[in-house]
């Protein structure tokens, strides 16, 4: 059987299909990805850990299971969704290093977790393993997922495969770069204020942030608990739907997960009908603002025209509190982070500073030396926003504005099915360009902060290029209406060719 592409270029759904048919083996596939990693890593640095030996061992076992299944005809991998077979049997997975993987070093990109080896898997990892996937490596994030460029990693910056002098976005920049460079088949990232969608936009890949409560965070190193979500980072929309189907659902160990069953998100993508007749697409005017690159605006306007050509009704809408999302986010997220990061004291895990003095001197020194500049900045900002005398003025005020931001979306979704915008106001920027100006860096997230505050799902997918640099289209939906969002995203993707372009990494 002829395989249409190089093995490492395969998507998860296509790889799973070829594995089921016996056209390829998991060992071949895993080997191809590992070779690609060896070839690209000197330029990209997407990975912090590559579990080559373990991955090949598990690939071998998957091949045995696949062979058995073919013999008996009783195939474990023909259905989708957790608990109903193994749809990803034999497919390697690439995981952001803030998600706990049993027995495999997990650093969250921080020196304060250097050599930390989790004793259990995150729920999302359990589910992916139950679906047949095996780990191939852990990817570079901004430290504790705080950043928009991976420049805040304690282990070096990741380079954008489309231009090695530019950032891949962040904080899930390693995962995004790995997908863009075919150094992996599919990945998981985390998104607190855009950390899945913004890097997807900057690397011409797909990043999906699910509704808050849709996916368990148990075993995910916490940043801001009222905002954190885990999301698929993939090479196409179909994979995002497949991976979401596997990881979504209630988890008794995460009380913020909702108790409604997760649908099979692939169902709506089976039709082969790309028409969007009757779909009401809202264009929020506040997402076309000063400071947005002209080429980004042109690209998004073209994408909207394309959706209209597929039959969608385009409506101008307003989300009047959009400009307040950034200050709201940068008070609430650091406040929650300052509480979540209190646990890093060098007592239970992580390196401990060896200094003279009492237990508090040791803790202060451990934290002062273990955390990088951005994490310290956010702990300080959050501590201040929560401190006596300032709580009402900053933290409580921001929580009230969060209500207004959420209300904007509720009202917009009374009029339209989905909203569309850019995922990033600018194409990938140069490494170092914003590194010394935190506020400028925060503005890189300006289009991806309001959705987490409102708890709604959003996806970024390839929508074009400016001078060879990727631009992503963001599609948002009402909470727990991922199907609508995926339907529009799939129709757009299948009638455009942006997702088929690959960066040229030679030379």
């Amino acid at each position, binding site marked *: 059987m002829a395989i249409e592409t190089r093995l490492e270029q395969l998507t998860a759904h296509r790889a799973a299909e070829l594995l089921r048919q016996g056209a390829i083996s998991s060992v071949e596939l895993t080997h191809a990805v590992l070779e690609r990693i060896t070839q690209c890593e000197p330029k990209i640095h997407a990975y912090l850990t590559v579990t080559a030996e373990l991955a090949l061992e598990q690939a071998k076992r998957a091949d045995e299971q696949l062979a058995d299944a073919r013999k008996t005809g009783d195939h474990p991998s023909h259905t989708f969704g957790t608990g109903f077979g193994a749809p990803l049997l034999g497919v390697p997975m690439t995981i952001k290093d803030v998600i706990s993987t049993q027995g495999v070093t997990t650093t969250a990109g921080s020196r304060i977790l250097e*050599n*930390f*080896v989790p*004793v*259990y898997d995150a729920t999302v990892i359990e589910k992916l393993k139950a679906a047949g996937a095996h780990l191939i490596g852990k990817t570079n994030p901004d430290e504790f997922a705080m950043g928009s460029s991976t420049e805040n990693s304690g282990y070096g910056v990741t380079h954008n495969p489309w231009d090695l002098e530019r950032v891949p976005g962040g904080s899930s920049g390693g995962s995004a770069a790995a997908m863009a460079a075919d150094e992996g088949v599919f990945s998981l990232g985390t998104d607190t204020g855009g950390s899945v969608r913004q890097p997807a936009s900057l690397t011409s890949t797909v990043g999906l942030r699910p509704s*808050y*409560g849709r996916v368990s965070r148990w075993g995910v190193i916490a940043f801001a608990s*009222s905002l954190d979500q885990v999301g698929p980072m993939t090479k196409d929309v179909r994979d995002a739907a497949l991976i979401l189907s596997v990881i979504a659902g209630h988890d*008794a160990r995460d*009380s*913020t997960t909702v108790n409604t069953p997760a649908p099979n998100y692939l169902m709506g993508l089976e039709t082969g009908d790309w028409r969007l007749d009757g779909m009401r697409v809202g264009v929020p005017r506040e997402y076309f603002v000063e400071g947005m690159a002209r080429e980004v605006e042109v690209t998004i306007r073209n994408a909207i025209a394309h959706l209209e050509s597929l039959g969608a009704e385009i409506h101008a809408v307003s989300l009047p*509190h959009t*400009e*307040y999302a*950034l*200050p*709201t986010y*940068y*008070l609430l997220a650091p406040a929650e982070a300052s509480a979540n990061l*209190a646990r890093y004291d060098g*007592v*239970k*895990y*992580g*390196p*401990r500073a060896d200094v003279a003095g*009492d*237990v*508090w001197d*040791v803790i*202060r*020194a451990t*934290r*002062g*030396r273990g*955390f990088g*500049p951005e994490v*310290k*900045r956010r*702990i*300080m*900002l959050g501590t*201040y926003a929560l*401190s006596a005398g300032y709580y009402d003025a*900053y933290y409580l*005020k*921001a*929580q*009230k*504005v*969060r*209500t*207004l931001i*959420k209300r904007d979306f509720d009202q917009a979704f009374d009029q339209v099915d989905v909203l569309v915008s850019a995922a990033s106001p600018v194409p990938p920027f140069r490494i170092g360009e914003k590194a010394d100006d*935190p*506020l400028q860096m*925060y503005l890189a997230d300006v289009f991806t902060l309001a959705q987490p*505050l*409102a*708890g709604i799902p959003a996806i970024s997918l390839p929508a074009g290029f400016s001078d060879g640099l990727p631009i992503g289209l963001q599609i948002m939906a009402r909470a727990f209406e991922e199907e609508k969002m995926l339907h529009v995203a799939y129709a757009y993707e299948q009638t455009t060719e942006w997702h088929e372009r690959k960066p040229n990494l030679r030379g």
Partner: protein
Amino acid sequence: MSLTREQVAHIAELAKLELSDAELERLARQLSDILEYAERLNQLDTAAIAPTASVIPNQNVMRPDIVTPSLSRAQVLQNAPDTDANHEFLRVRAILEE
């Protein structure tokens, strides 16, 4: 809002963060900038608005009070930088005076 170096040092003590003089200087400037930006929230009248702490309706999620297996002592201590000689306890500097 402009933060003084002394205020920043006070916050650092609340957060149990050792910071160098250069870091204190830099943070005083950067935090002041960020807080000044955040002041724009005061353009909004929120007197009648309830705060949102969480976007989901789940409240007081309960589970049956049943003992279930947990991590072993060895697992819990596996990543600890210091334990006692028998690997039974985490070890830190004395926290109580004689």
